[in-house]
């Protein structure tokens, strides 16, 4: 259930079990209740901060997430941190059914620090689908790369009516322009060469099926 780790991502280091469907006690045959639960518990009672949860949907329409946090000893309470988050805009149709989703801490209703267990409650009210679940659960351990969230700072317009410009400032700007032109000159243009043959030969065999 952990899935492969991508760059900067670690699979949730916990013992996961497959989605368990909700069953009525004493029910004879397996009904399809449309609700399933995935429990994740960190091993050896450990706890971690959860910044982001990444997963791939498989026909789940609504997702709720509850957490148990490390705290004072005593019976642990489950706290809802995400309620009925809509994954499929229209549960009878395919939209969003196999997409990848991210849940960030700013979308959560509570703090995600020192979490000891996570419970994912999956709902799929449409009877059209045979199975539903979420896959490839991952939790990146650090924030999104900072350069992505940094917007360029608003530029200060230079005052046109001031005295002679500050020579330091002018020389830095000229230097920057020079460096830029050097970089541009050095960079190869992504020109499309357009050749489809290999060393002047395009004598092909049959088409390959793999």
């Amino acid at each position: 259930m952990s899935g492969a780790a991508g760059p900067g991502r670690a699979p949730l280091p916990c013992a996961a079990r497959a989605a368990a469907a909700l069953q009525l006690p004493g029910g004879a045959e397996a009904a399809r209740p449309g609700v399933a639960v995935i429990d994740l518990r960190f091993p050896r009672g450990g706890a971690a901060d959860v910044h982001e949860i990444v997963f791939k949907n498989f026909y789940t329409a609504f997702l709720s997430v509850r957490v148990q946090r490390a705290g004072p000893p005593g019976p642990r309470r489950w706290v809802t941190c995400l309620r009925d988050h809509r994954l499929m805009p229209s549960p009878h149709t395919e939209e969003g059914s196999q997409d990848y989703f991210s849940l960030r801490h700013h979308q959560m209703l509570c703090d995600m620090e020192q979490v000891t267990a996570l419970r994912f409650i999956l709902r799929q009210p449409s009877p059209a689908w045979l199975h539903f679940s979420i896959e490839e659960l991952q939790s990146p351990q650090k924030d999104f790369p900072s350069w992505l969230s940094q917007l360029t700072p608003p530029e200060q317009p230079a005052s046109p009516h001031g005295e002679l410009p500050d020579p330091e400032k002018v020389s830095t700007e000229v230097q920057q322009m020079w460096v830029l032109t050097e970089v541009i000159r050095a960079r190869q243009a992504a020109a499309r060469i357009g050749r489809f043959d290999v060393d002047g030969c395009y004598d092909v065999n049959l088409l390959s099926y793999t």
Partner: protein
Amino acid sequence: MLDPDSGLSLTIARIVRRLQGSSLHSQLERQARVSLHKPEIKLESLKEDIKDFLKTSGWEKKLQNAVYSELNVFPSPCHPAAPPEHMKEPLAYMRKAQGSWEKRILKSLNSMCTELSIPLAQKRPASEQKELLNKWNEMGTDEPDLSLFRPVYAPKDFLEVLMNLRNPNYENGEQPSFRNHLGLIQVPLKVKDIPELKEDFSELGLNTGQLGIDDSAQVPPEFFENEHVRVGQKVLAEQDSAAAQQYVRQGCPTALRADLWALILNISNQPEDILYYEQLKSNVIQYDLLVDSLIYKDVKLTASNDDYYFVFEDYLYQVLLCFSRDTSVLEHFTYSSATPPKSYIRGKLGIEEYAVFYPPNGVIPFHGFSMYVAPLCFLYHEPSKLYQIFREMYVRFFFRLHSISSHPSGIVSLCLLFETLLQTHLPQLFYHLREIGAQPLRISFKWMVRAFSGYLATDQLLLLWDRILGYNSLEILAVLAAAVFAFRAVNLMEVTSLAAAEAVLADLSTLKVMPLLQIFLFATVT
């Protein structure tokens, strides 16, 4: 789903990466450098002054057009965790179906190749090269023996594949239930209903002027046409792609259409583009591909037999033969569910350095493919510009009409949209046709796959393609197909067989497209 901020950053990063190193980039740099000599550029406010200069000289607009073009062509960025095939097609079973369909096509092409003992590609001998160069402008006069060639597939073969498309996780029970669709398409994709379509296509409403309706002989031109032409000329003077796209939703005046479409598709026919086309031409001269014979056969079977398009036969060869050798078309496979066929240089099977794509552009033409190019010949007479317009139309729209995907403009969604519209708004007709064994999609599929090219009169077709460009979507094809059925509903209720239904709908050349669309969307009681 990506949240808005990181989605925006990823989009910006992608567009910057794509525009870097392009000819527009180097032109902008050259302009910026040249502008340093101008007196109004001051050193202390260098950045601002150069930006202002680029704005007033029109270069910023060109950059805006390029960015707008990128936004229109490429889908929004996927989640970082998603593998590249997810951007091509998010649903696993559709990817699989597309893979099997492609394998069938490859097998068919391979067997044709072995049966006829013709290599897939070979270099032309020098004498043949010279001969082809001489007859470049009149390749239509050539009468090669094509009797042994057959098209790799026809639209009806593709329809059979789409009919058998099933989601393994969907309850496709044997018992008829609300889940089984009454039409031919059985996948539960989300399609729009008429209220949503009315909102999306609001410019086609009854209160808005349209070319195709309000420019007819009975309507004085002062009411709409003159003003519309004036606005069109202004849009062209401003050279703004986004404004042009909004403008053509009400139709293009014939005199301005060529320039407006070029503006929307961001085609400027620079010297390097002409050079690129000449290089493709030299590739055609040098190499002979089996695909060329398929193209010849297709043109001879379809466009040459058409009253409107037979005059353009030579242009079609000049465009399609070059198209097959254009490796820049391979870029569209990042967002198309299809994959280009692969092959190896003779004797180097399995060695990756000798792997090539065949044909070089990765697109194997099917029966009717040349009809995508034919209507464009009315607008563009210069081969390199015609070529670029066709290539851009193909990588934006036409590729979706012959590949299996869940995209709202993909052919599967269009078929489902057509069937749903017909079922919802003409239930009696739908039921009747189904009962007599004439499922409506069997008749309308070929219209939609060809984007109605060859079925409608040319002026009407161009009005329809105006809206495809204006709304950047092919859904209008499904709406028109349903509107045609609605128009001929009375006759269709009286037929008793598929052949008779086909006969009623055989000739669409007298239809006026815009009134049909307007009535179906805005004037039918729902």
